[in-house]
Each structure stands twice: as structure tokens, then as C-alpha cells.
């Protein structure tokens, strides 16, 4: 094992899964060679539209589904190794706990299934139910729980074996805003305790708040992965807002930016900086100021354009550095670059 691998909680290479065609169903190629790395002690977010293969990937890691092909390691052991699961916690998406058990019994039962000794699971069950805010309802049967309460107990059972890696599949599904905040805080606490947290969620804003790194899965492939900063840096831009009260703004702005703009066949006004970053000018938006968008995060490169606009006696209303949100990244990933349309949900058919 290399040092790099030892530092990784998950090191996935070429994970592939095809569901065979049956009599009444078509074959589905759910995962198409996933390469993914999750460092120890980080909170990692897995994003993707419905049917992208997120849950399939997690189920492969938890040995619920067998991969068609998979290389790599989880906590330093080969994918599919059952003994590794004693060090992993898992909260499935649509989990169903036995209705006849109390919250405490659920946590203790799954603790026993993970091989935790009787005394340890008794102690941990009490601590964890307190940690997830369920101490008061610990001895109430699960059938009386709300969705949020079940989710909290689910988190507690995922942590009962004191795992090094925790996989949460849609942990905030059906949980109210207070519960979501609590779950975010729990993830942060787990990170502070040195645990690796692997989150699969649709709630991009929440992932953005807590994830160190993310991967976007689209139609069974990793569209992009890395820290949110690294993914957004080359997408950062400056926006210059020019007052358009005067009807001559269009001509004046074209003249001011003439050194950078070039005629475009489509009729839009576009250009680029000497260093190659694109410039986009929007003038024709009704009731909106004229907008110059420069695809750079470097403020110095914007200064010559500002100087020209001022020299043309145009009024600058705002100059803003823009950092794209996770949602922007997500939408970019799920948009077909050729057609500009959102990719159809679901995995691709055919093995």
C-alpha cells in the first residue's frame, strides 16, 4: 500500500456496473468506470441527478450490489471485503427499521450486527441517541416515529460501531430545516472527530456548506470532482454593470471596448482579453443595465476595461467578482454542451 493510498478512505478505480437485460426489462449501464478519491477525515459530497448512479455506487461499496468490474480500496482494503464493513457506518436512502423495536433496540441491534460488544453498544447507544437528539424517545417503538426521528435514529445506528468512514445516502431526506441544520452540525462534529463523511444528497446548498470536496456524477460517469474552490476557480468571473439610461450606451460601450471585442457571426458582442479569457457583453436586456462579463478571477486584468469605460464617460454602476455556486457547477455538469439542454435523468440503457 502506498502512502497516498493509506491517506485515502476511498480510492476507487474503474468501478463499473451493468444490469443485465431481463425478459421484461432492458439492460442498464448504471456506472461507467468511476474513478474517485476521498481523503481520510474529509467531508465528501456526491452529487448527481436522479438515476446518475449515486446510490448504486454506495451500494457497491457496502456490498449490497456486486459490481461488474471494480478496482480500488476502501479504508485500505479491497472493495467488497466484508471485514472492512466493521469500520464503516451506513445510512441507506429509504431505510426501514423493524417497527417492533425501540430506537435504542435498533441502535443496539445494528451495533451487534457490526460486532460491537454488549457493554460498548449499550453505552454507545445511549451516547449516540443523545448525540442525534433522540434520548427522550429512545425507548419508544419505531412505529411511532416521524420521518425525521427515523432519520436521526438511522444516523445513530450508522455510528454505533465508531466507524472511520460514514456513508450517508440522502440523510436530510424528509427532515425539517431544524433537523437539516442538526445533521449538518453532526457531520461537522464527525469531521472534527477525525471521521470521513461521504454524503450523497440532492440538497446542493447544504453540501456546499459542509463539504471539503465533491464529485458530480452524470449518467454513470464522474463529470468533475475536487474541492469546491478548485472546481469554481476557473469559472470565476467579473461582472461590470454600466448604466443604460442613455440610448447611446450601446454605441459608446462598443467603442470603448473596441480593442477587445471582435465581430461574432451570431450577432452577440463577444471578445477576449490578451491573455485569452473571454468577454461577453449584454446590451439588449430590457429594463436592465448593460453588462460586461469577463471570465477571469484576476482583478488586475479587468482594470484596462474599466479605464476605457470611464474614459468613454459611461457610468459604472457596479463591479462584482462572481464565484459560481455548487448549483451552477451542477447545472453545467448536467447540461448537454452541444444542445444546451438538460440531460435526461436516469442511467443510459444498454449494457
Amino acid at each position, binding site marked *: 500500500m502506498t502512502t497516498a493510498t493509506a491517506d485515502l478512505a476511498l480510492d476507487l478505480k474503474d468501478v463499473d456496473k451493468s444490469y443485465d437485460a431481463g425478459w421484461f426489462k432492458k439492460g442498464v449501464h448504471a456506472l461507467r468506470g468511476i474513478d474517485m478519491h476521498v481523503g481520510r477525515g474529509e467531508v465528501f459530497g456526491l452529487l448527481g441527478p436522479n438515476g446518475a448512479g449515486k446510490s448504486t455506487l454506495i451500494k457497491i461499496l457496502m456490498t449490497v450490489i456486486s459490481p461488474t468490474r471494480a478496482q480500488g480500496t476502501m479504508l485500505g482494503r479491497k472493495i467488497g471485503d466484508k471485514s472492512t464493513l466493521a469500520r464503516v457506518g451506513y445510512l441507506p436512502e429509504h431505510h426501514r427499521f423493524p417497527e417492533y423495536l425501540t430506537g435504542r433496540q435498533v441502535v443496539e441491534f*445494528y451495533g451487534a*450486527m457490526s*460486532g460491537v460488544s454488549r457493554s460498548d453498544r449499550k453505552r454507545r447507544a445511549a451516547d449516540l441517541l443523545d448525540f442525534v437528539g433522540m434520548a427522550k424517545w429512545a425507548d419508544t417503538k419505531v412505529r411511532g416515529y416521524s420521518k425525521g426521528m427515523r432519520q436521526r435514529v438511522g444516523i445513530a445506528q450508522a455510528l454505533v460501531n465508531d466507524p472511520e468512514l460514514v456513508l450517508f445516502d440522502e440523510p436530510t431526506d424528509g427532515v425539517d430545516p431544524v433537523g437539516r441544520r442538526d445533521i449538518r452540525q453532526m457531520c461537522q462534529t464527525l469531521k472534527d472527530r477525525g471521521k470521513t463523511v461521504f454524503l450523497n444528497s440532492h440538497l446542493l446548498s447544504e453540501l456546499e456548506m459542509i463539504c471539503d470536496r465533491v464529485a458530480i456524477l452524470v449518467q454513470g460517469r464522474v463529470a468533475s470532482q475536487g474541492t469546491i474552490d478548485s472546481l469554481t476557480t476557473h469559472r470565476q468571473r467579473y461582472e461590470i454593470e454600466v448604466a443604460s439610461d442613455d440610448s447611446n450606451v450601446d454605441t459608446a460601450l462598443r467603442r470603448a471596448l473596441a480593442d477587445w471585442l471582435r465581430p461574432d457571426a451570431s450577432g452577440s458582442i463577444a471578445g477576449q482579453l490578451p491573455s485569452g479569457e473571454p468577454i461577453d457583453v449584454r446590451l439588449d436586456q430590457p429594463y436592465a443595465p448593460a453588462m460586461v462579463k469577463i471570465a477571469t478571477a484576476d482583478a488586475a486584468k479587468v482594470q484596462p476595461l474599466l479605464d476605457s469605460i470611464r474614459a468613454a464617460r459611461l457610468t459604472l454602476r457596479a463591479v462584482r467578482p462572481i464565484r459560481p455556486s455548487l448549483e451552477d457547477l451542477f447545472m453545467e455538469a448536467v447540461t448537454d454542451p452541444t444542445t444546451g439542454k438538460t440531460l435526461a435523468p436516469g442511467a443510459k440503457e444498454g449494457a
Partner: protein
Amino acid sequence: MILTQTTAMLVDAYRELNSKKMFWISLILSALVVASIACVGINNKGLTVLWWTISLDILNTSLLSPASFYKFVFIQFGFNFWLAWIASILALISTASIIPDLVAGGSIELSLSKPIARVRLFLTKYATALLFTGLQVGVFTLASFLVIGIRGGSWEWSIFLAIPLVLLFFSFIYCVCALLGLITRSTIAALLLSVLFWFFLFLLNTSERTVLLFKINAEDRIASAERELGNLPELITRSKDRIVTFSTPKEGETDAERLRREANKATEEAKLAGHELRVNTRQQSLTEYKSTQATLDKWHGMLFGVKSVFPKTAETMGLLERQLTSLNEFQKFSDAQEEREDDRRSRRRGNTSGVTVESNEPSPSVARKVEEVLRSRSVFWVLGTSVMFEALVLFICCAIFVRRDF
């Protein structure tokens, strides 16, 4: 870790059954059955129910000892009826959901994501169902042991053989229920199809027994006809000799003597004609019996072959009867029953002369021969082949469970 996981699954199975109340309902019903058996007794006058006595000629201590009576009641009612049917159906209803619940979405992910091999997970779940059936049978058997000991005065330790036998019997059905539950993921479908399978086994067993009964009956008739045909030539020779004797007039024969001689001769001639006619009819019957026996033999061979592949539920339950009782133990009781049955038949035919009349109904001795044949079947054939069937079904279950993506 293995012990921790297994204990946890057993405790969980107990909690599940406990939550369904069926476990306790079955246990209470079992207690009621044992209590009702304890209320019934036998004395020199007949049957006793609590402090009342019902006078019976065919059931009293002169024909059957109290210990044999209780063994008989336990085997026929407690074991063959209660445990083999009602308690097993209740157990099947209680446990049919174990495998569909295991593989239900949302539940299977939690189980499979734990450090436990799939085969062990499946087999442990399967074993939990059997364990609680065993617990039910154990409680019932212990109570029956006490009743036979206290009321019958015989401490029959071999009665505890009922626990593994009922467990095996139940497991032969339950393995199919588990397979169906795994395939369909539906408790109702698994339960209904298992009951259908059980009915198929019952039908197969009943057919085989019936054909065996008629086959032995045909063999019995062949032997009887051959015996009779063997005796007839001697009777014919004797009749012919007598005719010759009666044809020769004695010296100084009076008219009265002559008339008597001629009458005797005529009688002997009639007897001879009867014997010769009997030879013909017996030979025809023998040919018919042999043909019937050959057909029955073929059918029985086929049914026996099919039965050999499937679980032998009735024979499995019959093993306890074999172990607990001998055919001689109930001889007096059976003889009294037979006598009664013969009387009844004779009365029904209006024949009170005591002459044997040929009938197609199998005689009680044939039924006893069938019982002897069934008892002579080896334990390996009864249990070995049934366990092999169960092992095959469980192997298929494990193969499906291990390979399936959930």
C-alpha cells in the same frame, strides 16, 4: 463476532414473533391441547373425562393400559393432528414473513452492509424460524411427557424425539417457503404456495399409501386364490373317489340304503361340479388379480419413485410412532376393533352364518401389512432423502441470495 451477531438475530427474531402475538397464541393453544389430553383418562369400565366415566366395551384397561392409551392419544391427537397440522400451520404463518422481511427494500441494505457473509445471514435467519418452532414443540412435548408420566404412570423419554422430528417435518415445508419468499419477496405468496406444496406432498403420500394398500390386497388375494387352487385337486379326487364308492351297490342292500347311497352320490356329484366350477372361476380370478397386481405394482413404483425425491412428511412423523409403540402393544385393542368391524360387515351383508364371503374391501390384516411395510422403510430413506431435498432447496436459496443485487 459470530456469536454476537447470531445472538442479536435470535433476540430480534424473538422480538418480531413476540410483537406478532402469534408465538403466545400458539403456546396458549398448545397448553389447552395438553390440558384437554390430561382431562381424558381410561379405567376398567371405559373412558373417563374429568370425573365422568363413559362405559365402553372397546376401550378400557382390559384392552389397553393407561400408559398405552396416553401414548396413543399423544401420537394420534397431540402429534399427528396438533403438531403435524395445526401447530405447524400456525408456525408457518408466524415465520413466513421472516425471509420476505429480510429481503425487503430498506431492510436488506442495512443487513448486508454489516460484516456478515450473505450465506451465514440467510442461514441464521432460516435457523431462527426453526428455533422458535422448536421452542413451541419443546414446551408441548414436555407437557405431554408429564401428562403421560403422571396420568399414565409411564415416563416415556423417547417422546422427546418429537422435537427433532417435528422440526425436520416443519423444515421440509419451511425451506420451500423460504425459497418462495426469497423469489417473490411476498409473505402471502410464499405462504399460499407453501401450503400448496404441502397439499401436494399430502396428496402424493395418500396416493402412494392407497395404491400400496390395494397392491397388498391384490397380493393377499393372489395368495388366497393360489392356496385354494392348491387344495381343490385334492377335494376333486376325494369327491371322485366317493362317487365311485357310492356308485357300487352293497351286497344285500335294502331299498332305504340304496336310496341313501344314491342321494349321497348325487350330493358328491354336485360337490364335484362345484369344485370343478370353482377351479375355473378361481383361475379366472387369479388371472385378474395378477393383472391388477401388475398394474398396481407399476403405479406404486412410479409413486414411490416420485415420493423418494420429495420430503416424506408423513413418514417423518410416523418415526415417533415407530419408536414409541410396537404393533403388538395395541394387539388386544386392534383385535377387538377388528371383531367389531367383522360383525358390522356381516350384519351389513345380512350374513350371520359365519361363512366367509368374498369381498373387494381390504381386510384389517391387509391394513396391518401396510403398516408393517411402512414401518419397515429405513430411516435413511425417510429422513436422508428428505434432508437431501431440503439441502438442495437451501443451496438454491443461498445461491440466489448471494448473487442477487438488492
